[in-house]
């Protein structure tokens, strides 16, 4: 088969093509195994960096005092955790539902879906320096549109890599949300358990020390 156009694109430019042509892009990715771990990591890292910049550099009137409260490691850990919880939840359910996607493909799709939000956040950072509160709709409404676009990219990508119909994709997305809740719940229980263990040990130490 003759390969041309987007099919011969560099893997680092490929997500930009996918962003605008999700159906073709993700199909090609699935068929020719174009998912690349470096690109996934790069996109997630870019999102973390842009998110931190967003929190710091969006002007005070549209941002409040967030700039002074931002803690970069905390943002990074939170975002990575969210990324892995979402992808893991999707992987858990889609393997059960005859999904053909691998975990690294799910991660790649999720990372590609983030790309519009990265670009939008950059635009917002720049525009916020010039816009007042009254004019802020110029950036807030497109931001909502971009979030929907990202969600759509994620859904289309998943349907391609798992080889799902539209209905099944929606169903799997709902199950993914359920999975996220379950993971968070289990995580919370674990944290509470370890905290109790910690306090138990501390109190035992105090008992020995002061009795």
């Amino acid at each position, binding site marked *: 088969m003759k390969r041309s156009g987007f099919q011969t694109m560099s893997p680092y430019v490929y997500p930009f093509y996918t962003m605008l042509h999700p159906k073709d892009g993700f199909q090609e990715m699935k068929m020719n195994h174009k998912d690349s771990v470096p690109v996934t990591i790069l996109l997630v890292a870019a999102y973390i960096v842009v998110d931190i910049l967003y929190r710091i550099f969006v002007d005070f*009137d549209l941002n409040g005092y967030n700039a002074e*409260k931002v*803690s970069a*490691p*905390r943002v*990074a850990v*939170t975002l990575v955790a969210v990324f892995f919880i979402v992808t893991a939840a999707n992987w858990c359910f889609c393997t059960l539902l005859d999904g053909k996607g691998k975990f690294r493909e799910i991660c790649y799709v999720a990372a590609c879906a983030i790309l519009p939000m990265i670009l939008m956040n950059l635009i917002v950072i720049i525009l916020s320096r*010039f816009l*007042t*509160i009254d004019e802020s709709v110029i950036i807030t409404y497109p931001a909502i549109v971009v979030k929907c676009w990202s969600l759509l990219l994620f859904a289309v990508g998943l349907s391609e890599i798992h080889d799902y119909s539209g209905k099944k994709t929606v169903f799997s997305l709902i199950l993914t949300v359920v999975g996220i809740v379950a993971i968070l719940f289990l995580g919370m229980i674990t944290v509470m358990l370890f905290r109790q263990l910690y306090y138990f040990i501390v109190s035992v130490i105090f008992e020995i020390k002061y009795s």
Partner: protein
Amino acid sequence: MKRFIAALLGCVILASLWNPAVAQASQPDRPYTYDEENQAVPSVNAYQVKEIVDVTSLGGVGFTSAQDLFVDAQDQVYVLDSGKGRVIWLDENFDLVKIIDTFTWNGEALTLAAGAKGIFYQEATGRLYIADTNNDRIVICDRDGAVLQVFGKPESALLEEGVDYKPTKIIVNNLGTMYILSQNVNTGALRIDKDNNFTGFYGINAIKETWEVKMEFMWRQFLTDEQNRQSEYSFQPTALNNLYWSDDRFIYAVSPTNDTVETPVVKLNAVGDNVLEADEVFFGDLAANEVGNSETEVVPVFSDITADQEGVFTVLDSASGKLYQYDDSCNLLAVFGGLGTQRGLFDLPVAIENNSRNEILVLDSKKNTITVMEQTYYGQMIREAIFLHNDGRYEEALEPWFEVLRMNANYYIAYIGIGKAYMNMGDYEQAQYYFKLGGDEENYSEAKAKLRAENLKENFAAVAAVVVLVMIFIMGYDGIKKYAVLAVGALKKRRKGEKV
């Protein structure tokens, strides 16, 4: 390598637990104020004890459970000594003038029942109004104890038969119309004219419009009138605790804080509407935020209020024993007092008044003293700055604002005041800086817009050039050329047409 990565990951996770916005702990009874995000922050004392008037030392006339006091325009003080049924009259230096303990009415002696709760003195007529609570009447006398009138429960169909008339607080306007609070009446103050005719209720406490209230209201639309009459409303207005007749002819009223009260502090005009702009404003303490006392839940019970000519009002929260002072835009100026046995703290504060020297008199019913609080230098500066600021004289307010900030950098209203001054002077960059410090997003935005317009005007050529360059970048040189050629061609044709 793996170990290194694990250590790095561990460091990152540990670092993520560090939160820069740590609440600071500090000792109790330290002055504090609230910042722009409603967090309690340390402050400076705006009031200090000037003297404690212990009436026992004034010729052996101690109060027993005094309930109310009143200060007239000459700063003379009238204390209602409820336990002994008498009025103690002090002059402006808190020296004893007279004890009014014998009341005569039509040649007969009249005694006040123990537990009288309200006193008011009207200077124009020289009349002393006493709410003789347990005798269900209002006693009007002069300062010699000669009783002029005694008013019992007014006759009116609106005042239900079964309800007792127990007047607790009274204020009187210039026409002699009395506004009386009565125990167990939650429909506002009783407005009674000078001949003891009931003319209506005044200043009923608004019920907060929560969704439960709206649901009940909606539900009642489907009931018949008969059913509506039979079932009681589950949301009743809260009874007012106290009234204050201010010199600018507004009536201030306070009530306890609870779930159904719209706002516990109101300033009412002649028809009973609240004129305070109190949205997004809270009165008293935010329970969990008080410095050094973050665990205890404090629900303010406002029991008295006093105000001065500039519209600065002070409310007394009898639950915490604290006094809160606000300007007429409800900005918090000062918090002081509290419960305790030290000087400047109170055991059972029941009434407050202010006098023309901006001193606050606090009557303590258990200590049986009047604590006179005077403004500190810091308090004076805040007062001066706020006064100029509310008057729109921002530039003049600049100096006192900086003085306030020198003493207390936590006072956010000062930053906003300075920002407004710079904005008026046209220094938008400074204005932006100070609005940011004061947490005022809207004014910051306004300053930004003005700065933007100014920059645009100054650098118009550069901006236009950038726009043209962007157009060339988008349309390409050829595209521009095409339009240019077309335009020039059209121009030439028109010229030729004109010549022919």
